[in-house]
């Protein structure tokens, strides 16, 4: 009887120890710490891969503020039209090297870029493109067509571009230019560099 009681007690202790171990392991995993995470293998001795670039046409404002001026800039060569579009747009949204002046409101980032089967591109920009815009139809026109022309000038299969703001269709950036449908490339507001 005593032996049986001892065996039962030992079994109970074992079950408790196992349960405690299991709970501890689960909690440790949930906390994301501990030695169980797989180690990342970094091959420091491998030679760097050569990154290939293309020359993209981007746009800044002309000296008199009336039009867009094209300039060439190297952007990373990407596989496929959508990744390449992302690279081009990211470059267009960055501050250009002085004395070039950007027409994109500061802080604007690319949220998404995708292309439909019919060849329309959708450029989804962060809210700064609207909330930090100076306003005025001229400035707004330059912002819109810097984006539209950057896509259509570098990706010939795309003929129309629709700008979205924060993932949604928008009426305008700042109250003037109609963004409710895709816009075609407009070279009338582009002047020679």
């Amino acid at each position: 009887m005593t032996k049986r009681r001892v065996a039962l007690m030992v079994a109970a202790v074992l079950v408790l120890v196992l349960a405690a171990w299991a709970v501890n392991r689960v909690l440790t995993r949930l906390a994301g710490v501990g030695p169980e995470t797989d180690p990342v293998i970094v091959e420091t001795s491998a030679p760097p891969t050569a990154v290939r670039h293309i020359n993209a046409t981007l746009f800044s404002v002309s000296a008199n503020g009336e039009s867009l001026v094209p300039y060439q800039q190297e952007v990373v060569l990407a596989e496929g039209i959508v990744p390449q579009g992302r690279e081009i747009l990211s470059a267009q949204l960055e501050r250009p090297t002085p004395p070039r002046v950007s027409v994109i409101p500061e802080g604007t980032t690319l949220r998404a870029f995708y292309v439909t089967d019919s060849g329309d591109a959708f450029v989804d920009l962060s809210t700064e493109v609207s909330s930090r815009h100076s306003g005025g139809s001229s400035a707004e026109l330059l912002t819109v067509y810097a984006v539209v022309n950057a896509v259509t000038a570098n990706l010939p299969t795309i003929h129309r571009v629709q700008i979205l703001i924060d993932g949604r269709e928008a009426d305008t950036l700042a109250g003037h230019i109609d963004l409710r449908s895709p816009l075609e490339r407009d070279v009338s507001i582009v002047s020679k560099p």
Partner: protein
Amino acid sequence: MRGAASLFPAILVLLLTALSQAQGTQSPTAPLSLISREGRRAIPTTVANGREFVALDDVASIFQISFREDTLAGGLTVTYKGRTIVVSTNQPLASVSGRAVSLSTPAARTGNRWSVPIDFFSSALSLIYDGRIELRRASRLLIVGDLRVPRVTVRIDSAGPPTRATIEIAPATRTSVVTEPGRLVIRLEADALEATVPRDGAGLIDQFRVGEEPTTVTIALADRAGPARAVPVEIDGMTRFQIDVASQVPTAETAAPTSAPVEALPPPVEVRSVLGTIVIDPGHGGEDVGVRGRNGSEEKALTLAVAQRVKALIESRLGIRVILTRDGDRGVGLDERAATANNNKAGLFLSLHLNASPVATSAGVEVVHSRVDRGGGDRGAPEDDTVVLPVFGGTTRAVDLIRWDLAQARHADTSAAFAEILAEHLRERVKMGARPRRDLPLRVLTSVNMPAVLVEMAYLSNADQEKLAQSDAYQVSVAQSILDAVLQFRTYLEGREGR
């Protein structure tokens, strides 16, 4: 210090009380004009809580009335030739020979003086008075007795030359026209006139003067004016004059060797109202400030200021109704602006804005009309449908359906024409931008079902332009250019309808 601090609330209360009293009672802009057989006289009025009052002391002898406070009746008793009116002092009511009459506000007492609302005379006293009493609020006239006081409205249709103007007299009135050197004089068979006249003339007409003699309208002609004609027509119960003034015929000394034929006056035609209503849209408003100038000015305030100037100018000079899409600092959606114009069946929509550029030196005015066809596939040419709907009475009515986002497409040519006219007139007075007229896919214009343009009046991103845009002189220049353009556009539309 503590004493001063304890006094502060009391001073604040006194200031607020003084302010509230100042707002509660104030003098109106002009006195009321009483017109009777005895002539015209000014009646002083006061305004309290937005209501206009006349002190009974001031008019008792004119109307031969007496009055006294009647505490038993709970009001003020006014007596005229033995007939009485009891005016309530706590309700906007009067009892006239036992009949209740509604007034705009109760009678009020200021010190020892009793005052009644100005509609008391036409609504209550007229019921027991021997003669007619008529109140014309808009022109601030109180007409006593059976007098003929026609409404005379003058508007300039075209600065020309030849200069053309219209004078409407309602109701129809017998008139005679006298042509004198340098002026035309129209005499009306009336006791007095209620006139709405443009402040300045235009083209070959220097000025319109009403009441130079008691019931005349004088058209003062410019030095270079030639033959002038005033032709009356009776139409729709009113007398309508069409005034035509041609340029001077060249004299032998001044005429060129191959002198042009003498300018003939155009045949008088009935001027139809092709531009009855104009909607002016002050851009932005409310939380949407628009462009902020380098020195702190806001686009929304400047657009409203110019819009109000344009409204006053067009209404006073051309007699065209002008509606603003906003008359204060409030946010209005782009579709709501278009709806205001469409619902009022306006003949022209003009949106006022101020521009901005990343380059600080950008300057000048730009006139923009809608770029309708921009390869939008399903947003191409408009395709209108007509549906037949049943209406009250068992009949039907054909209703045109126009796609909301394509409404402007059908007016593309006319909008472009007005943009050209406006740019020309602006160029005469203000600096134009590098692209004075252009077409853009403007959101606010796409749903407007009438000729429509947007004007960028200056660049607020340019400090010099900002200062200019804030000045009265610049705003007047822009407003005057718009007026001239509207005048020419009306002629353009009339010519097009006549073809």
